[in-house]
């Protein structure tokens, strides 16, 4: 592998990065625009951020989104982890292939279909739409993402660890709680974070299943944009990007440090051994 910069490499990087991030950069820049017009630069200002925190409707929507995301991510993590366990551990039960397929189908199913089918279900059973239905809908589609993430970790999990725990006096449940769970915890946390972000930015499924008084932030943003983009929206989006970027950055730094530490430890152990 050569690490040299060639014209080809540089061009690819510029085009790739530009394609990915140019829109976001523009959005961030215009959130600091003095003018009300989104497309005309009129000097630097943070006034839209101030306006944002006085916009009750937007804050309400943010609060609903946060609660939906926290609740749905947590429940989806529990359910998704259980599904992953069932899929990796009990490899012989009848209909396993069907079950696997059914767990993973929502990954590729269009959001519109998931949203519509849930709406039909809620209508059919006479369930009042609102906060609860959005949360349930989010649990439904994000638990399969959790299942995928956790399952990929469980495949490489040495089951004799659990047996060793039982051998040393743990009931099967204790063995899971004290040994398996701590070992697969990083994957469970990633699963939770994935479910959380999926819920944060979902528009389609939430739109189908929301009711009066339960508007999520993406829904609010979308409805406002239809009346014209305001720099306020840019400000909200910038804050959202900031939160997500910080999270990703912290996660990757922590992960990298742990890897480096682990390598050092192993080298040391090998030398002493």
């Amino acid at each position: 592998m050569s690490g040299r910069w060639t014209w080809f490499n540089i061009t690819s990087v510029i085009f790739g990065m530009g394609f990915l991030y140019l829109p976001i950069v523009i959005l961030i820049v215009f959130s600091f625009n003095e003018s009300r017009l989104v497309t005309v630069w009129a000097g630097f200002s943070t006034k839209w951020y101030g306006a944002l925190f006085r916009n009750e409707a937007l804050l309400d929507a943010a609060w609903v989104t946060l609660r939906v995301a926290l609740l749905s991510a947590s429940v989806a993590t529990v359910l998704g982890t259980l599904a992953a366990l069932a899929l990796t551990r009990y490899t012989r039960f009848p209909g396993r292939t069907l079950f696997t397929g059914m767990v993973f189908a929502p990954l590729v199913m269009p959001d519109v279909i998931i949203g519509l089918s849930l709406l039909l279900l809620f209508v059919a059973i006479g369930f009042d739409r609102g906060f609860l239905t959005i949360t349930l809908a989010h649990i439904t589609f994000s638990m399969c993402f959790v299942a995928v993430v956790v399952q990929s970790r469980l495949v490489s999990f040495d089951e004799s660890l659990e047996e060793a725990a039982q051998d040393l006096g743990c009931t099967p449940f204790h063995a899971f709680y004290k040994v398996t769970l701590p070992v697969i915890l990083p994957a469970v946390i990633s699963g939770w974070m994935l479910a959380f972000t999926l819920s944060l930015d979902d528009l389609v499924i939430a739109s189908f299943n929301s009711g009066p008084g339960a508007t999520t932030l993406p829904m609010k943003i979308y409805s406002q944009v239809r009346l014209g983009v305001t720099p306020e929206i840019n400000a909200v989006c910038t804050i959202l990007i900031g939160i997500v970027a910080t999270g990703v950055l912290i996660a990757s730094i922590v992960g990298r440090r742990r890897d480096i530490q682990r390598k050092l430890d192993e080298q040391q152990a090998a030398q002493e051994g």
Partner: protein
Amino acid sequence: MKSLGNVRRSFAPWIDPKSVPYIRFENVTKKFGDFTAVDNLSLDIFEREFFSLLGPSGCGKTTLLRMLAGFENPTEGDIFLDGQSLKGVAPHNRPVNMMFQSYALFPHMSVEQNIAFGLKQAKMNKSEISDRVQQMLKLVKLEKFAKRKPHQLSGGQRQRVALARSVAKRPKLLLLDEPLGALDKKLREETQFELMDLQQELGLTFVIVTHDQDEAMTMSDRIAVMDAGVVKQIGTPAEVYEAPDSRYVADFIGSVNIFEGEVKQNADGLVKLDSPDGFSEIQAVEDHKFETGQKLFLAIRPEKMNLTRERPTDANAASGEVWEIAYMGDVTNYIVKLDGGKMVRASTINRKRAVENPIGYDEVIWVSFEPDGGTLLDR
């Protein structure tokens, strides 16, 4: 009286018909789907015994161990531990601990916490736990490493942590699944003796699974040689080596030459075989009566074969050509192609540093052995 090697002095409960076995497998069969891993097997193991289950992979030895630990249940038959049936007893309720082949150390816990894990489950009080952990760390010489995590240890150290963890609860029975498989040769030999000392010191019963015959020979009081779910032979290391009762066992333990022949004469404890393998006839000392004309096999170890340039006076002799020489340091192994075409192995001990005119390649020499050097087998 002639004896087949030495066993641990005055320890041979299996000889005494009055002694009660500590573990008893009674007609145990284990099936996985259509595959029979263990086939109608009965086996007694005694208290304080160092017992090896030896066989190639897939012979059912690990399944046997896992049934003792409770991770598998017999399809048929029953297992008794100290007179109690183990039917329906969950792994966490068995007074048995196991050392896993992969060591199965808990990666999120330090060495100390790993060792203390079982003690905490047993609800021992804190000071007792820390005393016991210290004791165990000392036993396996890892005091300095108490705070380390498993990934900060070398292979040999991990193996010792696994051992300490599995004996920390003072189980009466310790199961070891290929405990030394991952260690290099030198460390393995050292650890073999450490394990034997530990077993003596703590007065435990050890049941160990291994595919390494040297390991089984070195450590065990008795060995069960297994193949395809059945026990072929149980005996002390000397018994299975010197008096194998089938060609399978003779071949699995150590190296062996097997000659085939028909019984020509059988009188006064001496059997004469008609042998086509380059010997005019083979004589073997054997009390057992065989029928004239019966087809038999004579198994004889390479170190019981003599190599000479002159025709020897031994009863069984054949001439051949030196085909291969492997100098191992302590012994030299020869492969000789007999005039009949059969390849035989012979080894000589190098008791002198320098030998004048040693036997070399392509020499025509005589291979011979005493009538009591081998074992006659009918299967």
